[in-house]
């Protein structure tokens, strides 16, 4: 069978962000995936190491546009643990509300995009239409549609006044019905079943071995949710349940995300009821020496920040790890043996956020020195690549090591 090499990206309408993976394809079936990332590296760790704690929050917020409150959430918690700063109770509740509002609009965005990837543009338009009132709500509370600048070491920058409470409840009820409608439309549509079920399956062992996080892991039966396992902010004062599916295919990931929207709405409503009075910022003066780890369950998984502070107001070292950094290598396990038209959907099922991952590099062909490869060059290239793999591994195609 003639194998052709399909370079997808770095510029492809399917992907908002640049990321390039090369598929080795036999006819329509994918036999090998080569991942190249690195288009987005903006040296954020080096920049944050030269900014003090207040400026750092703004830099960290601009890592990713969709989860633009997850990184500050983790950064601020890491700084508070490093310099053991106290945070008032009301600030905890406001942080939980903003975190959950962002999870809803991020999941609605994903549902729309998934619909767009399989050509179902009406779901794309609906999903994004019901996301607009949410962004307006966030604009009312924080002043900006996406980069909220709400968080600060030691508390929150702005308070949510009581007048907004019933406005939030009204909009959340509207979103509850609409997501209900979308979930019914998505879950029992036979064509969607045909397109989503049984493709890109990530088994539980693979999920554990690749250390995937977030909905990708929960869709493969791994019980892991940072809000439940390592409770922080106000998540342990509000009861909600973790959603786990076992099939591990794209359909399970869609179900996990849709049901999580309902959980988030429940969390916000309860937080609004139980919101205590009190001031929202503990205005820390000095930071003690020490290390701090901050984790937060972002819409895509666990965001991890590590800060080492040496007493003055500039952190000595900031380590940032986005959820997609662990989820993207799992393409290797899920894309093998699928059709090209499914690969687009499988890579999107992980809801990769390449700006978060900020780890992108392009594999340049050494001998040709990225000269213009003609069509039969491509075929020759993938031929000897597959032959090399066949000899090396003795007829076994999947090589997990060289990602």
């Amino acid at each position, binding site marked *: 069978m003639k194998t052709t090499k399909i370079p997808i990206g770095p510029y492809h*309408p399917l992907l908002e962000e640049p990321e390039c993976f090369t598929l080795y394809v036999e006819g329509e079936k994918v036999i090998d995936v080569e991942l190249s990332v690195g288009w987005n590296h*903006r040296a954020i760790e080096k920049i944050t190491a030269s900014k003090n704690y207040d400026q750092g929050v*703004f830099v960290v917020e601009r890592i990713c546009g*969709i989860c633009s409150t997850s990184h500050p959430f983790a950064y601020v918690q890491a700084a508070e643990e490093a310099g053991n700063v106290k945070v008032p109770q009301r600030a905890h509740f406001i942080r939980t509300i903003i975190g959950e509002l962002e999870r809803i609009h991020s999941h609605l965005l994903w549902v729309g995009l998934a619909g767009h990837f399989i050509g179902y543009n009406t779901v794309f338009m609906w999903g994004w239409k019901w996301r607009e009132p949410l962004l307006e709500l966030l604009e009312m509370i924080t002043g900006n549609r*996406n980069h909220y600048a709400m968080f600060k070491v030691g508390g929150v920058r702005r308070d949510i006044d009581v007048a907004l409470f019933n406005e939030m409840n009204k909009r959340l009820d509207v979103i509850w019905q609409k997501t209900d409608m979308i979930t019914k439309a998505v879950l029992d549509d036979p064509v969607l079943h045909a397109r989503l079920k049984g493709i890109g399956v990530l088994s539980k062992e693979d999920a554990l071995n690749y250390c995937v996080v977030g909905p990708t892991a929960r869709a493969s039966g791994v019980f892991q949710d940072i809000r439940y396992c390592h409770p922080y902010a106000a998540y342990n004062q509000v009861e909600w349940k973790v959603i786990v599916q076992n099939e591990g295919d794209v359909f399970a990931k869609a179900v996990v995300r849709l049901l999580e929207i309902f959980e988030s709405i429940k969390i916000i409503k309860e937080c609004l009821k139980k919101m205590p009075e009190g001031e929202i910022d503990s205005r820390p003066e000095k930071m003690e020496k020490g290390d701090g780890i901050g984790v937060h369950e972002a819409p895509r998984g666990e965001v991890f920040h590590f800060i080492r502070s040496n007493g003055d107001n500039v952190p000595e070292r900031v380590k940032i790890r986005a959820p997609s950094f662990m989820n993207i290598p799992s393409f290797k396990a899920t894309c093998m043996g699928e059709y090209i038209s499914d690969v687009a959907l499988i890579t999107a099922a992980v809801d990769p956020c390449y700006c978060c991952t900020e780890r992108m590099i392009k594999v340049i062909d050494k001998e040709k020195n990225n000269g213009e490869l003609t069509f039969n060059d491509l075929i020759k290239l993938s031929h000897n690549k597959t032959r090399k793999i066949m000899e090396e591994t003795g007829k076994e195609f999947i090589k997990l090591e060289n990602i």
Partner: protein
Amino acid sequence: MSLLKWCFKKSLWVFHFAASPCNNCDIEILDLLTPRWDIERFGMKLVGSPRHADVLLLTGSINKKIAPKVKEVYEQTAKPCIVAALGSCGCSMGIFDTEVNYNRAGPADNVIPIDIYIPGCPPKPEAMIMALVKAINKL
């Protein structure tokens, strides 16, 4: 020729092109297609390949790795085309404009000639539509 120029103004095909952004501007571009801010009213359509494109929406502060690709795609688009730098990253490297950033290849106009600058992080969809309308009148 004025008929063709009128047609060019009335049907701009937009190609979105992310050069190491924080993908907030990319999501705002997609917001333009949704029912709330429908740019199809002005005849604009998001196309997949630079060959079909008239407007090049460049988002993000370009890093060293992506700079050659930016030039490559710019040559690939059929002229006459408008190039728009979107967001404060595109206009002036935004928050990443420190000499500490070892991986920077400068804001957008270091790499390709830019016609429109749309500031804001992220720029509001209304701001983007206003910028595109201004670009149309400038043609």
